[in-house]
């Protein structure tokens, strides 16, 4: 099992309290950063570490920080995006529940690096227990002088607030999150201007995922160069993967990026293989938004190389035969699962969560959901597959925010890779309502697949 940076002390009893966390070396990064480093040096360390955003897009965090506009006399904000609502992803909730002080510590260091005097943690409304945990942790840190005025006597002031959201998926999009944080309707803003120029209340703002901010702590403790040694290529460090679906051992795992996908799936250190002795049929590698892959294409790339758990390797093959790292919501499907039903379920989610601001997404997500519902319940037509692909193309790239793309990709990829299962739902309509298509050839060696 690889090394653990974020979840090292996760099993220590009472790690959610300040004293235990501190006794395990917690808040050392705050001391190091505030007392020995300048904000620019902290940004430089994060840049050196090669840390990439853990929320889904994988944009280098250090780069994002250095883009922040710093006009004189204007407040700057750091906002932590804890609105984790991607189906299949639960790593941030896990982290906030069991080791909240890691996030608080990361927030202090990151706010110091960006020169923010006020920072917010925007938590999804459904996560009420986590909001209470964070508020308690903030109160503890404040009592010990790690938050508030003149932190550790360094003259740096920081106020940290927890803001519950309304529980909308769209508020995980950074500009919609800022709108919601300002107390408005959570509609994504039209970019430009980007939040780094005009974000919260029109001031320069950085929005980072919970895990990205937590990862700043080991980066400052060990140094950016040390962190960059972990991982492979441009995918550095460790990543939390929320493994779910038909696995023997579902849960949150911290992996070194670059771990072979096969090892992650079948090793007893991680997921332990497919439950109940079944066979793997398909995998969604990074949360519901990323393209779904059949078992054979997930384990091997189209060039017959082993697939690794890294940003580059998962994306190998582009949209034709690859997928994306996304937010790390790993969902495995065994041979008994129905891909049509799963695709309908995802489409239903995006239909429900579309903000309704721009027309392709508002109307298109509902349309796709209705067509998929028809297919799943045996009323589909052969032309429906082409219709779905066409509708998904009309949505993709034509919307204000990436929710349109996120709704289009799972549908388009499911039809690309599992078209015969969709067709079987049309030709054997009655059978399709009583049994599933089964494994078919989706786990066959790659050369049998015509991609």
């Amino acid at each position, binding site marked *: 099992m690889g090394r653990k940076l974020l979840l090292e002390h996760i099993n220590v009893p009472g790690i959610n309290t300040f004293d235990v966390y501190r006794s395990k070396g917690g808040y050392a990064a705050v001391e190091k950063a505030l007392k020995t480093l300048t904000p620019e040096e902290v940004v430089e360390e994060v840049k050196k570490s090669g840390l990439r955003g853990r929320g889904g897009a994988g944009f280098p965090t250090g780069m994002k920080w250095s883009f922040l506009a710093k006009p004189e006399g204007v407040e700057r904000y750091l906002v932590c995006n804890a609105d984790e609502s991607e189906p299949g992803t639960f790593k941030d909730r896990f982290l906030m529940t069991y080791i909240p002080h890691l996030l608080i510590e990361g927030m202090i260091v990151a706010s110091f690096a960006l020169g923010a005097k006020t920072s917010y943690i925007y938590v999804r409304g459904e996560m009420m227990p986590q909001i209470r945990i964070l508020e308690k942790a903030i109160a503890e840190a404040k009592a010990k002088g790690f938050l508030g005025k003149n932190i550790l006597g360094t003259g740096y002031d920081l106020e940290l607030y927890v803001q519950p959201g309304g529980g909308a998926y769209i508020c995980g999009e950074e500009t919609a999150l800022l709108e919601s944080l300002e107390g408005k309707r959570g509609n994504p803003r039209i970019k430009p201007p980007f939040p780094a120029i005009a974000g919260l209340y029109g001031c320069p703002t950085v929005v980072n995922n919970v895990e990205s901010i937590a990862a700043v702590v080991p980066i400052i403790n060990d140094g950016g160069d040390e962190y960059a040694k972990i991982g492979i290529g441009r995918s550095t460090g460790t990543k939390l993967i929320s493994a779910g679906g038909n696995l023997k051992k579902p849960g949150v795992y911290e992996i070194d990026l670059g771990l072979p996908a096969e090892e992650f799936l079948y090793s007893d250190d991680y997921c332990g293989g497919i439950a109940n002795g079944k066979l793997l049929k398909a995998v969604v590698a990074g949360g519901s938004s990323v393209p779904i892959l059949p078992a054979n294409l997930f384990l091997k790339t189209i060039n017959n190389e082993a697939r690794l758990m890294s940003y580059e390797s998962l994306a190998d093959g582009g949209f034709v035969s690859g997928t994306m790292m996304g937010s790390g919501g790993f969902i495995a499907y065994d041979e008994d699962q129905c891909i049509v039903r799963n695709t309908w379920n995802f489409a239903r989610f995006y239909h429900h969560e579309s903000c309704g601001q721009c*027309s*392709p997404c508002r109307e298109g997500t509902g349309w796709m959901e209705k067509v998929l519902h028809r297919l799943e319940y045996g009323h589909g037509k052969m032309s429906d597959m082409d219709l779905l692909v066409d509708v998904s193309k*009309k949505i993709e790239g*034509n919307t204000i925010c990436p929710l349109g793309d996120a709704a289009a990709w799972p549908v388009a990829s499911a039809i690309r890779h599992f078209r015969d299962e969709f067709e079987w739902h049309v030709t054997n309509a009655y059978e399709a309502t009583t049994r599933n298509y089964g494994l078919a050839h989706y786990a066959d060696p790659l050369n049998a697949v015509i991609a």
Partner: protein
Amino acid sequence: MKVTIDSITIEVEPGTTILNAARMIGGDIVPPAMCYYSKLEGSGGKCRTCLVQVSKGSEKDPRPMPKLVASCRTTVMDGMEVKNISSPEVIEARKGVVEMLLINHPLDCPVCDQAGECHLQDLGYEHGAAKTRYEFDRRTFEKIDIGDKIQLHMTRCILCYRCVFVADQITDHRIHGILNRGDHSEISTYITKAVDNDFSGNVIDVCPVGALTDKTFRFKNRVWFTKPVEAHRECENPKCCGKVTLWYKGEDVLRVTARKDEYGEAEEFICNTCRFDKKKTIDWVIEGPRKVSHKSVISSNHYDTLKPLPVVKTNPLLQQANKEQFERETRL
């Protein structure tokens, strides 16, 4: 700043959007806009009908933009090259957007008061398909009365947010917004609370479809049977300009609206007194007939004069072609 749209170059001020640059050139290369309204701050970017392709970012950074951009919210850069009707991707995407806008629209034009001056009708005529691929029930809503003068028929709404911006920016206090999300979103006055405000009538003028209609005009006549006449009066309201279009049928003024330009935008907003209460010729000083674009059904059987576009005025070759085209069109 130089910007080239469909191979026509024009010099514009910095900060101009692509859409406004295209409107300066005029003609067929102007992208359609359903949600953008030049008089309302922050409007635009939502309907996606004005998508264009930027094939060259600027003189400094000639890389093309990776995705189609909303021309109403993208400002021009020096040396930018934009493709609108000359790009197959744009045409394809626009067709997709029009299809999306129409799948939940009731298509009740025969009984809709907006027919004849409806932007969605024009857009569907220009870019839409004759048959729909949508085979499900369309979304419907109950009609809502917003005060005694305005009716909201959400079923027809395309959620352009223009009326929300009017409520925010033109009227005094907002009791009007969007409820719910996704395709259940609806314009609402928050549980039928009446919009009672001096300028609330302007939501009728900004609505691109028949979702917000004038109850004093509903079902009185078809717009193409009425004759638009420009008129003005000394309005007591200091914020109202008093310049309107009167829509006559015979001797009677059937309705009063703001004066709309060729893109359907009100030139200046008017107050509710002018709009709803002054419906006699004696209230007004008549200026003369209102020119309506010859492409509109309202101007059928009206005479027209040659009005060359700004870019044509400087080019003798285009001048000749424009004259010929004008003669060909008006002969019909």
